[in-house]
């Protein structure tokens, strides 16, 4: 799998490159800023781009903007955005595009390479990956009136994995249950949360995340 790395922190970038190479990825380019990233993608046609959100010149969300541009111009290239901080709005922004194949994770996840590699493959394959910490944060929010309270413990587990961007198959494997069971759980969850069934994978992730994010604003939805 061909990967472009973009991170202004050279040490991390080099370390990550080696780690990915060790784990069967082919790093075709390493960049220290977001400016040349889009051109580089057009040129090298990678399967995947791993980009740090905060890069020169303003050190705010250059990587996120580059990721959205890449998805617009190259919908089939997977983009994984890494960050030291997790902001739900950035995840929602990434997932709101037409195409799937996006990920948003804490940078330190790279150290857990098997999980990280799994997430990267998911993203490259058109799926999505959302940092489990963000999902647990959203799910863990206490609320006076939350539709999430209607879910059974098992359904919540399924919702968490679903929101992290995992497929029904992956959820089934993770929970050691039948894929069919997962499917019925997902249907139940969407019905209980009052969400419409979403055929596209990244759409259902987005629907779950935005529901969890806004549950306090509009508890009747």
């Amino acid at each position, binding site marked *: 799998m061909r990967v472009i790395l973009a991170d*202004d*922190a050279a*040490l*991390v970038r080099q*370390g*990550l490159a*080696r*780690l990915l190479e*060790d784990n069967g990825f082919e790093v075709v380019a390493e960049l220290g800023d977001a400016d040349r990233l889009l051109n580089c993608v057009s040129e090298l046609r990678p399967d995947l781009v791993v980009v740090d959100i*905060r890069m020169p010149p303003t*050190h*705010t*969300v250059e990587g996120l903007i580059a990721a959205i541009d890449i998805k617009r111009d190259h919908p089939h290239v997977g983009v994984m955005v890494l960050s*030291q*901080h997790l*902001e*739900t*709005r950035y995840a929602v922004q990434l997932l709101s595009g037409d195409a799937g194949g996006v990920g948003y994770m804490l*940078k*330190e996840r*790279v*150290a*857990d*390479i098997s999980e990280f590699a799994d997430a990267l493959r998911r993203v490259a394959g058109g799926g999505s990956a959302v940092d489990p910490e963000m999902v647990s*944060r*959203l799910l863990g*929010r*206490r*609320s*006076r009136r939350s539709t999430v309270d209607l879910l059974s413990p098992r359904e919540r587990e399924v919702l968490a994995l679903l929101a992290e961007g995992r497929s029904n198959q992956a959820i089934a494997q993770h929970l050691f249950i039948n894929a069919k069971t997962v499917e019925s759980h997902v249907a139940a969850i969407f019905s209980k949360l009052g969400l419409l069934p979403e055929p596209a994978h990244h759409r259902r992730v987005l629907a779950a995340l935005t529901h969890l*994010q806004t549950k*306090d*604003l509009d508890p009747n939805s």
Partner: protein
Amino acid sequence: MRRLRLHVGLAALALALVGAAARPAVLEGAPLYRVGKELLVGVLFVIAGLAGWARRPDSRTGPLMTAAGLVWLLARVLVWTGDNSFVFTVGLVLVLAPIALITHMAVAFPSGRISSIVERAVVISAYLVILAGVAFLDVDDCAQCPNNLLAVSSQDGTGHRAETAVQIATLTSIAAFVLTLARHWRRGTPATRRMLVPVLPTAWLYAAVSAAFYLVDLGVPLRPVRSWETIEYYSILAIPIAFLAGLLRSRLARADVGTLVVELGEGARGELRGAVAKALRDPTIEVAHWGADQGSYRDADGHAVDVPPHDGFRAATMIERNGQRVGALVHDHALLEDPALLDAVCAAAGLALENQRLHAEVLDRLEEVRTSRARIVEAGDAERRRVERNLHDGAQQRLVTLAIVLRMARDRLGAGGDPSLTALLCDASEELTQALAELRELAAGLHPPILTGEGLDAALESLAERSLVPVEVSLAAPGRLAASVEAAAYYVVSEALTNAAKHAQASHAVVRTCRVGHRLDIEVADDGVGGAAMHPGSGLEGLTDRVEALGGELVLESCPGQGTRLVAHIPCE
């Protein structure tokens, strides 16, 4: 003291003159009533003159009036007792002299000083026609009576023509006198007019009566002369009273200085001019403060004021405090007649100007303190951003790299490696993950990148999402604001939500922002235990400093058992 002795001496002289005039006249069998009536005029002039002199020593009206009275009395002594023609003639001159002195007094009123050529001409002509009039004075002819040495017979043609000429000259002089007084009134400032009010009608009445005599002499048919003499007597009697009243009218204004001081003390700032104008009864007044920086006098609106003024009707009086020039009063010339009143008002105005200057100074200092406070907060924010950035670019990246290296080491060790070493590496990785999480919290607490990147709404939503207490968010302040305002609002909400979770045991909190004109309102309310207070050194006190540095205010409502409500109002563009 010297003046008092002089006054006593003059009063004694007047008494002596009264005695000298009355005794022989009464002995000679003149009716007491007529003698008294005649001498009363002189006595009244002396009394009024001395009184005016004592109350207004700066004005020459008092001395002039006293002189007129003494001359009047002396004339009676000389005319009634004079046994030779020379003394008698001098007496006759002195009988008419008070008329000229009255003219002089009226024209020069209230200062007693003649200020223009026209006035001088009127006064000199009065003296001249009076002197000339002696020649045609009607004196009872008797054998023993001394002669009027200056007498000119009006029986012959030349004499008659001369008399007519003098009469016409006198009438002209009276007319000039009347017109001069009218001009005086017209040009007079309210303060002058105030003093002229009693003087003018009396002087005019006396002038009119005098004119009537000359008109009758010239053959103009007027009513019987008898009634005119009565009117003349009372009109001349009214003159000293009227002039004294005029002089004292300015004195009455002194009482208003007390009111002025009280008014200024009550803090009617900016109304200084109006209050001073009221106290001095001079609406043209200008109160100028001395701008040492500009080197000029300025009024309350900052416009330059000419000191001294260029229009000849006003004068300037300097206002000083502790020997330092603080301002000037530009006022009616007539007020110079009452330097004591002017001094009192200047002292009051000086106090007020000094107060204004100090007030302005304090405001300047406050503004300086406010801006320096804002700079300190801004510098603190910049430092926080710098440290956050350094953490992000330095420690955090190094620790992530370390995590990668540890992972690679574990991979190298492989499945066949020393299990204890693998366990150690796993422990190290876990510790590292923990360290990274703590560092992440620390960095976010220092300065949230989302605030700089996305603005207040996004940062507050993020804050609400992380809050341990469920938060309802209602944001109505869209768009970006000044970084310092956004930071202050953010820290207000952050501190309030932290307190809600840590101390208030709240189960629910509400965050509201709203923009009202050029003001951002932030409100955080929780349903916790309440009872929060601004302790010195607490986060809330730091917030107060931060909000007030921006010219805003922070209000804490936290009654025990009624939850806590923290509201900040911050001015914004």
